[in-house]
């Protein structure tokens, strides 16, 4: 054999030896740890600290050591005290194999008689509750059900033993438990079953950040109103010509009524205490709420962030309102916190929008022009135009009345308030459309 061949042979032999030894090394029992944990379990059991016993029992299993009768027995006792009946059964069975005591056999028989095996395969993201209307009298049977309920709550699924009888209910599935060696399978939701085993604190599964997501599309009608500013809003960028006009006209018959002589000016007192007229920004007069109907179109999306009822999430929408009669249009964006208890839907959040349009008439504090210098113009003839931007708040309260192709058909009342730096805009209305449907189990 050549040198290269000998080296290859040694490497190969070493690799084979390593491959043979490695699994053995991985399965090696940590005897010192086993002794320490067994001692801890024994001490905790004396204090009736069963949760602690259960935790240490789990650690004991991870030592990969063969357990003794006493350890299986204490593990069974802790499982019993925590309602983990199937785990109790398995540990007692292991103990019985080591020492087939009559009492153990009797207990196993009793478990087989009074409990049945059930596997509920559910959905970790959409968890159904396990219900039994009439709870059993025996506290350990009660604990067994309560444990299963905690596992269902934590994982959406359960595999174990439950007291015979019932009826039990998971989502819309009603079933009774019968004694026997086989697991009865109940499938709810997508029936994927748990990713983890066990339950309680060991079996908590993350439900994910998002419970539901979907579009919002609503259309409706309502009323729109806008209160005029209480006083003049002066132009900050007035031209010289406009400022020249800002001089009170005195000594003429009409001066008393129209001291500023122009419809876009307001009479003020200057710093020297003298009357002065200043140009103002033209504003529409008051738009009363119920005189201005509007059509309302809203589109957007909603994301559900919680799973426990009442489910909550956030929504973002863009809204367009067209006001009839005033040639006003409003476009807003709305970010809302959404709460959806049962069939109801409530949303509340900040809004920001642009209100634009043009029309005739101006607010009362602007003087009507009646002078020789400026042309006569009646309020109703005065035109305004432009846009305003500002933030506000909007809210809605709706109720799901129908399911539409996987969406929730909704009717809702809504209200909004917005203010730019000059005036406020508000409205109420009724709209209907679709929002995301939340998949829930009944019961």
């Amino acid at each position: 054999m050549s040198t290269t061949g000998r080296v290859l042979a040694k490497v190969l032999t070493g690799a084979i030896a390593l491959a043979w030894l490695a699994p053995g090394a991985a399965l090696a029992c940590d005897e010192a740890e086993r002794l320490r944990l067994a001692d801890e379990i024994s001490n905790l059991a004396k204090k009736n600290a069963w949760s602690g016993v259960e935790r240490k029992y789990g650690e004991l299993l991870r030592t990969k050591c063969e357990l003794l009768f006493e350890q299986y027995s204490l593990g069974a006792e802790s499982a019993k005290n925590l309602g983990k009946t199937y785990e109790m059964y398995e540990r007692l069975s292991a103990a019985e194999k080591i020492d087939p005591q009559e009492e153990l056999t009797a207990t196993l028989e009793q478990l087989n008689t009074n409990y049945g095996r059930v596997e509920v395969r559910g959905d970790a993201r959409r968890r159904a509750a396990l219900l039994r209307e009439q709870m059993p009298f025996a506290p350990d049977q009660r604990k067994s059900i309560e444990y299963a309920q905690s596992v269902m709550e934590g994982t959406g699924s359960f595999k174990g033993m439950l007291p015979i009888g019932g009826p039990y209910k998971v989502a819309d599935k009603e079933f009774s438990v019968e004694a026997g060696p086989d697991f009865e399978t109940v499938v709810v939701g997508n029936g994927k079953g748990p990713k983890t085993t066990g339950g309680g604190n060991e079996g908590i599964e993350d439900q994910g950040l998002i419970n539901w997501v979907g579009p919002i599309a609503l259309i409706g009608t309502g009323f729109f109103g806008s209160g005029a500013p209480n006083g003049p809003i002066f132009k900050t960028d007035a031209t010289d010509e406009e400022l020249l006009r800002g001089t009170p006209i005195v000594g003429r018959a009409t001066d008393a009524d129209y001291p500023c002589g122009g419809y876009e000016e307001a009479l003020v007192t200057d710093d020297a205490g003298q009357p002065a007229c200043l140009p103002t920004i033209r504003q529409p007069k008051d738009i009363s709420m119920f005189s201005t109907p509007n059509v309302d179109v809203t589109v957007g999306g909603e994301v559900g962030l919680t799973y426990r009822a009442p489910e909550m999430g956030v929504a973002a929408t863009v809204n367009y309102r067209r006001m009839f009669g005033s040639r006003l249009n409003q476009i807003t964006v709305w970010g809302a916190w959404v709460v959806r208890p049962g069939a109801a839907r409530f949303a509340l959040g900040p809004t920001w929008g642009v209100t634009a349009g043009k029309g005739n008439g101006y607010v009362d504090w602007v003087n009507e022009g009646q002078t020789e210098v400026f042309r006569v113009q009646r309020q109703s003839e005065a035109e305004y135009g432009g846009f305003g931007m500002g933030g506000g708040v909007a809210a809605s309260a709706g109720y799901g009345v129908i399911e539409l192709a996987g969406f929730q058909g909704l009717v809702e009342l809504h209200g909004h308030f917005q203010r730019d730096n000059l005036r406020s805009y508000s409205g109420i209305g009724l709209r209907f459309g679709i929002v995301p449907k939340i998949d829930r189990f009944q019961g």
Partner: protein
Amino acid sequence: MMIRRLLSGMLLAGLVSTASAGEVRFTGEGHAYNPVWSLDGKHLAFEVNNYGDRSDLHISVVTGEIAKDASKVNLPGGGGPFGGSQVVVNPAWHPQGIVVFEGSNTGGQFRLYYYQPGGGAASEMISTTDVPGDITFPAINPKGTSMVFVADQTGNGDIYTRDTNTGAVTVAMKTDVAEMFPQFDSAGSKILFTRKQNNTEDIFELAVSTGAETPVIGGNNDQSRPNYVNGGIVYFDNSRDSQSWDVKVVSGGNAKVLAKSVRLPLRARPAISPDGNWVAYGFEDPTKSDSIMLSRVDGSKNVEIKTAYNACGEPAITVQNGKTLLAYTALPSSGADYRKLFVVDITDKLQ
């Protein structure tokens, strides 16, 4: 001769019956006491008291007059070969076939335990966290939706209830004196109980929903161990003579004697039939002690069940598959060391 003719005549009239009985066998030595039937009549729980270090609870599966050998119920930690002494008494059955009883290990506190026939050890019913101290006198309402018991955590016996569906334990009555023998009525809306005060025991009724208490019957000495029957309440009374007990029925405040000088059971209430029409008892009088007597609670009829044994007492009645079964304890012979438990079919005696 005269007596024999009279007895023959009574037998023909059906007023005196001789019934053969099946013995309920159990392991260990001691007196059999306080048999209590499960609600379906298929199980019979009873105490075996050696008047020494222990009183055990045994349970037998009964089919007609045939009773399987009874098995002993062990308290937690008491089942091994080195298990210490235990006192297990006062069983009461739940409709789901679970028996609740008082138990105490090696002189400790009395706590309530439960056991489902079929194997394993008993388990504690109510934790010391929920109710500390001694817990005694368990009784369960006929529907099984609530249990009543007496707890002494305040130093006096107070009445508590446990809701089966919620598991919640609630104080139903708390006073400065001792309440005992709580018992639900058939609807579960009232609790019958006794109160020991000034060396005399009287009977009261408690409305569960309101907590209102109503006196039922009082008098000299003790009126004790009440039980609901059709149209009234049956109880033991020693107001006539502190050394002898009568069976009385009270209805609307009027009490009448059903039987005088009866054998007072070790701890049981007057035994009544499941339909509430009959009450059973034995006699102190040695000449009558080979019989168990059944009386209709309205006093209209008495039926004597003659036995082949002595010192008959501790009766309990059930109906199983249409058959009326009577359990009682007796000395098999005059020189016997221990009382034994027997079951007899008395269906045709009550027609």
